[in-house]
């Protein structure tokens, strides 16, 4: 299997912001005392007059961005996922989502791969929180290049957008023609297959591709879908894949109760019901540890996806 290059999504975000700053004078960027970590600091170096550091005051930052948007700007607000969703949920709901303002929330350090900082810093329910908000678009890029494409698309799009990024350097897996034209609400098929569909989001997409290689050894031909937009979900692609392959496994670095997998399940139940299994964190908080140890302990490895696929195949009598 080809060795992937590792790149950081946050660097891609910083790069995209600088490009946007050059292209458009209506872009403003807000930070909350983490500008170095989330790479809004790169934008600040280029456009100091359009960068605002609100300090450790996330609520204020979000509502101020709503004000920016109400006054005609496109505002990017960025900090760690843990601080820019739950802590500011009401500000997002009331001052951003309800009035449908042009605020782009870019959350970094999402999920348990945050590692050593532990459960207090490991956001595993943000997709749930953002997904239930009317008017909110939710994007989880699979790697660094897709992050850049997603940020550019979000800037173009009118209305609130939530983009979820991780901390670590992760494999570049979207450098294929299928992924080049990023379109909000459009899933990409990363690999064709006839026997089962693996749907991944974020860092789990690369793991789904690896799992598909592994399944090939067992004569199982897996299709892999990169579900980079969680909302609106690409139902057409999903239903088609369900019809063609007859089984489905989802994989996400998120609480499995209420993330991407549950959205997929809802779509299938109402449209075309196939045996399915969801890989994700089974309704528990994380803890301190290395990313790899945590991915193993909380059931997010390639093997977990492969096992889930076998389980689905077995239920179909194959």
């Amino acid at each position, binding site marked *: 299997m080809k060795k992937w290059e590792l790149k950081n999504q946050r660097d891609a975000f910083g790069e995209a912001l600088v490009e946007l700053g050059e292209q458009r004078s209506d872009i403003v960027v807000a930070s909350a005392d983490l500008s170095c*970590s989330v790479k809004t600091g790169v934008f600040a170096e280029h456009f100091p007059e359009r960068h605002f550091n609100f300090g450790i005051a996330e609520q204020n930052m979000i509502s101020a961005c709503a004000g920016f948007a109400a006054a005609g700007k496109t505002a990017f607000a960025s900090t760690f996922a843990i601080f820019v969703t739950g*802590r500011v949920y009401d500000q997002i709901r009331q001052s951003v989502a309800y009035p449908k303002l042009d605020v782009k929330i870019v959350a970094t350090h999402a999920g348990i791969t945050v590692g050593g900082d532990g459960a207090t*810093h490991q956001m595993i329910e943000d997709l749930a929180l953002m997904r239930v908000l009317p008017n909110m678009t939710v994007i989880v890029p699979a790697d660094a290049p897709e992050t850049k494409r997603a940020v550019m698309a979000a800037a173009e799009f009118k209305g609130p957008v939530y983009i979820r990024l991780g901390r670590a350097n992760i494999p570049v897996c979207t450098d294929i023609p299928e992924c080049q034209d990023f379109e909000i609400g459009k899933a990409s098929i990363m690999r064709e297959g006839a026997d089962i569909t693996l749907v991944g989001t974020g860092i789990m997409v690369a793991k789904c591709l690896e799992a598909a290689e592994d399944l090939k050894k067992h004569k199982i031909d897996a299709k892999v879908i990169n579900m980079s937009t969680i909302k609106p979900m690409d139902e057409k692609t999903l239903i088609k894949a369900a019809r063609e392959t007859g089984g489905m496994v989802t994989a996400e670095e998120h609480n499995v109760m209420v993330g991407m997998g549950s959205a997929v399940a809802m779509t299938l139940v109402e449209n075309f019901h196939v045996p399915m299994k969801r890989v994700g964190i089974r309704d528990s908080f994380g803890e301190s540890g290395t990313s790899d140890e945590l991915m193993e302990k909380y059931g997010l490895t390639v093997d977990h996806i492969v096992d889930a696929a076998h389980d689905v195949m077995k239920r179909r009598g194959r």
Partner: protein
Amino acid sequence: MKIFPSLISKEYEVRVYSPLHIGAGIVVNSYPDEDIKMLEEMAGKVRRHIIEMIYGAGSGHPGGSLSATDVLVALYFMEMNHKADDPKWEDRDRFVLSKGHAAPTLYACLAESGYFPVDELKTIRKIGSRLQGHPDMRKTPGVEASTGSEGQGLSMGIGMALAAKLDRKKYRTYVMLGDGENNCGQIWEAAMSASQFKIDNLVAIIDRNKLQLDGPTEKIMSLEPLGDKWKAFGWNVIEIEGHNFREILAAFKKAKETKGHPSVIIANTIKGKGVSFMEGAVGFHGKSPSKDEYEKAMKELGGD
């Protein structure tokens, strides 16, 4: 901060802003030299533990852990009533580390107090450890509140202090805040309510190390005049040099004597205190030292 040696030796004046006696200086009796020496030695030990823990884990927050050390040592080894062999003792004084990223300091104080073996410190941030990256009150004996998301500890302290009043208990509650943490709106919600409820069994300590994550506090989100702000919210404000044990202990005493108002101690500190190249260095807010830096730091702290 200013130390004013008085005519009588070993007596110091501490600056106090108080709604009761505005701007009044107080002279406080000092403490025996042996006690101070014991605290200083313990602070050295705690600082070495901090560096070892963060180096061993490969991540963590040395700057704010080192600046908070002397205040925590004064609390755990002199000021607070607590029992390591009975962590849930009902009458214990409570300590909430609102700036949870200084967990290494808290763990070192708890271990040296006997809550768990000192040897366990090296498990910090490792999978399965009782010592999480940020304090976890369900996992670690002696930890009173789960913190790490800044801004919430003072409110928890208010609940504990009010519960003490309801239960007619004498215990006191201490909460340590970061200065950057004063950016958080919730701190000021808490400040308002503590004076509304006249919570005089509560002491907030601000680790005034003048730095937050992105840079100097006065540059990122300026706090000054910080003492006046707290005073305006109805608090008894005591400002000290936060690496001087006599001042720290005098401030606790002054707070205890203040009735009808909560007290806040602004402890002027140096981020990274004790390790020359970490002192005042923003870069060491949340970075573990390299091998060379680790060895140098341990040497400076009197380790071997």
